[in-house]
């Protein structure tokens, strides 16, 4: 009879020993794979699009080869990446497309994240049709004429309307509201992931079929499938404030870097380097294309670019 009681007591003691010996700070937990061989480590967040992979590949290559760091990368969606950054699971996000709510919470209120400045690349979201289609029907590039082409853009998924192909659920989009508020005869079909969307676009392009898609610049796919933007009602400051009532185009966004505050303060050379890291859309696309089109590994692509562009990256080194 005494035995179970002893067991319970032991378990309770164990629990106390485990939990009582002090607080475990949830903000101070790195990846178990970090610094495995005693090296200084930086963890970078990679988003699912290739542009973000290109940034990380080049930063990783230089951090490893020039500054002697070990770099871990983690693929995370945009919003969870902010969360991870705040907790110190990752040290830096190199390309952010604007998350006002997160900026307010983590930078202004909690101070766990610090701004890292411009990446040098300007992002723009829009609606695109393939250029081969736009050349045949130049008027399709104005949203007012889109309804004329709804029939040609119909698919089995779009339920009798034209199909507006949208991508990953993690991306910023107002498309449902836009279709409704501009009163267009279209159905937004969510591909569910960028991989699916790109695959579908490539299949359409192979067959020279018309399509209408949510897409964004800079993006390597433009080099493979030339696309022309459809003009939406012009963007004005604040016209997208109410997500229900949006009826205007997407803004042009200078893409931003963000760092974990502790890393920004104490990250040494790595933090100094990442703060200075800044390149152009053209340069980013060069690397992106090597990764996505020539199927080089991100590391090889970065090596090629670094070998050819020494003056550019020399300036980033601390």
């Amino acid at each position, binding site marked *: 009879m005494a035995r179970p009681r002893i067991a319970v007591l032991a378990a309770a003691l164990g629990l106390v020993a485990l939990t009582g010996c002090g607080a*475990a700070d949830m903000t101070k937990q790195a990846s178990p*794979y970090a610094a495995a061989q005693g090296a200084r480590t930086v963890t970078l967040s990679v988003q699912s699009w290739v542009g973000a992979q290109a940034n990380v590949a080049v930063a990783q290559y230089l951090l490893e080869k020039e500054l002697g760091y070990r770099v871990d990368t983690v693929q995370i969606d945009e919003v969870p990446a902010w969360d991870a950054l705040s907790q110190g699971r990752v040290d830096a996000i190199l390309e952010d497309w604007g998350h006002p709510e997160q900026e307010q919470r983590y930078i202004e209120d909690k101070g766990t994240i610090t701004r890292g400045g411009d990446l040098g690349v300007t992002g723009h979201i829009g609606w695109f049709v393939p250029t081969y289609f736009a050349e045949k029907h130049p008027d399709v590039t104005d949203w007012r004429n889109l309804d004329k082409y709804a029939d040609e853009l119909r698919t089995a998924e779009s339920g009798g309307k034209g199909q507006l192909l949208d991508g990953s659920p993690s991306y910023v989009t107002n498309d449902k509201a836009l279709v409704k508020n501009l009163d267009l005869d279209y159905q937004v079909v969510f591909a569910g992931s960028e991989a699916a969307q790109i695959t579908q676009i490539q299949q359409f392009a192979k067959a020279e079929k018309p399509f209408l898609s949510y897409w964004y610049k800079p993006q390597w796919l433009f080099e493979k499938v030339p696309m022309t933007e459809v003009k939406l009602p012009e963007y004005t400051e604040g016209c997208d404030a109410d997500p229900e009532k949006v009826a205007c185009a997407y803004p042009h966004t200078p893409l931003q870097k963000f760092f974990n505050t502790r890393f920004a303060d104490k990250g040494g050379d790595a933090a100094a380097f990442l703060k200075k890291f800044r390149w152009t859309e053209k340069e980013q696309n060069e690397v992106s294309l090597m990764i996505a089109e020539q199927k080089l590994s991100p590391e090889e692509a970065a090596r090629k670019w670094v070998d050819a562009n020494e003056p550019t990256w020399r300036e980033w080194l601390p």
Partner: protein
Amino acid sequence: MTATATPATTPAAGASAADAPESAHAPDSAAATSPAAAAPSGSARTFLARHRSRLIAAGTAVLLLLGAFLLGGGTWPGRMAVDLSGPLGDTSDWIIDNRDSHPLFLHVLGHVSNAVVLSVRAVYLVLLAAGWAGVTAAAGVIAWRVAGVRLALGSVAAFAACGLLGMWVPTMQTLALMVVAVAASVLLGGLLGLAAGLSDRMHRVLRPVLDTMQVLPAFAYLLPVVLVFGIGVPAAVLATVVYAAPPMARLTALGLRGADAGVMEAAASLGATARQRLLTARLPLARKELLLGLNQSIMMALSMAVIASVIGAGGLGDRVYQALASVDVGAALAAGVPIVLLAVVLDRVTAAAGARLGDAPARGARLGWAIAAAVTAAAALAGRFTGRLGWPDAWTLDVAEPVNRAVDWMTAHLYTGVPVIGGTADWAAHFTTWVLDPVRSGLTWLPWWAVLLLVGALALIIGTWRTAATAVLAMAGIGVLGVWEPALDTLSQVLAAVAVTLVIGFATGIAAARSARLNRALRPVLDVFQTMPQFVYLIPVVALFGVGRAPAVAAAVVYALPAVVRITAQGMAAVDPAAVEAARSLGATGRQQLLQVQLPLARPALLLAVNQGVVLVLAVVVIGGLVGGGALGYDVVFGLAQGDLATGLVAGAAIVCLGLMLDRVTQPTERRATAGKGA
């Protein structure tokens, strides 16, 4: 509805009616007996049992008519739904705001998280320190000791292949995570199983919990775990444990309960205490089940390894996931193959260990282990002194490029414009218009109460009043959560996918049962389908079928097919040969033997195949969301991607409800005793 209802006189009801009324002493079979068992007199009971499904069908028809008069049509009424977005949003905000300061996090969850990180790190460092030579040698000698020379060579080849594919470090990361997750699952599952095995009350309490855990699609609970633990390894390990512990618990309980009463009696009469009986008699007797539980936990954990990459688990899963970003099937495959290899090796080795249990220990067993340890140490040291701890870069093969070329060729030639039969894109469009759309509009056209009624009737015909009640409540839960329409959309995809799976699966399974050669040839193919991470075939299905619900269905079929084929083939093979022989001697043709003897006799297995098909198809619904399947799957992915607890959790809960409902509606009355292979 009557078409499906008529042939479905439940086997258990029939059997118990033939037996004496007191046949149901064991609690399990009591639960399985139909309500007809409560009928007072034998003849009325037989009548009820025989005409049960017809009675239920008639009752349903009457209720449908009544309902049409009293309730009218329409979708789930808004006033009966609860909007959870407010409270869930608040919860999520509270967690984020307090995660760094609240004692709950600082003193409990933080330590859990730390413990996980530390243990994974410890294992990882050991693996790295052993180097590739040490790890490969260890895999080889362990396999040799527990499973023989053939599997030892296989294990060495598998690990070498991981290195050759350039995946050594990610493989070690995945392995480290797996070791910790499986150890935790076995510990937790074992404890739960022990409790359920020793106490009837615990058994009753735990069973529905384990049932539910088994139909939970893994994606559904990633979001809450991430919210609490943040992105990374701790969340991944904990999510994996939730997924992998139930089979261990179930099989432990089963093993303990199945202990031979005679042996237990003998142990008791020798004056053994309860603890001694447990340690010296019960547990050793249950060794086979325990090992099968370990085997199942490993398989479940591995399948979770990739899904967990979505929340930053790193390792092989992360490589698969990253390859997707550049639409690189070849690279995804290069990371997927090591997962398959790990799964096959671990499965075969643990299965062989289980099969060998109970054999008399070979002479010199201890010497064998000593040699094994020596070989491992020698290999590890050799690797260390030659400075080759990591896998040499020069020894890698690039498979990505040829694979991509093959995929490109396939999709370029099959997508559209194939003469006569049309391209895959055309099929997909037809499938969407002719099958998916009508099923979906049919389901949404039905008034909500009629859906509930049909669900209840179906569950009652195939199960018991208890399963029917669960099914109806689960379905009603979906309405209350306010996601009635997307849930019906998802349901239509599931039904279509299950139908396709069953047609192909039954045909293949029957063929495999009739030809041993086909069965052998199928085994590795099924292994690959079953363990290959679903993310790998995400791009090929889109390349073949375009974006939409059709590729989602295709992905689900690929995933669910192996289990259905296996269970069908096993069920058919288990049919008493004497019965078939008797039919043949009476002059039955092959077709008659199949339709009138084998299939009816294999009915329980076929029902189980249906059930597993449904559960597995539902598990891929979220993957379907990644290729344009929309509905609940998309909502879960959206919630995860946007950190939106309200959307993600509600959709996840609705998938769970859908899973419970479908499980109950298709659950064979004779409950499956073990979490079968491939289940």
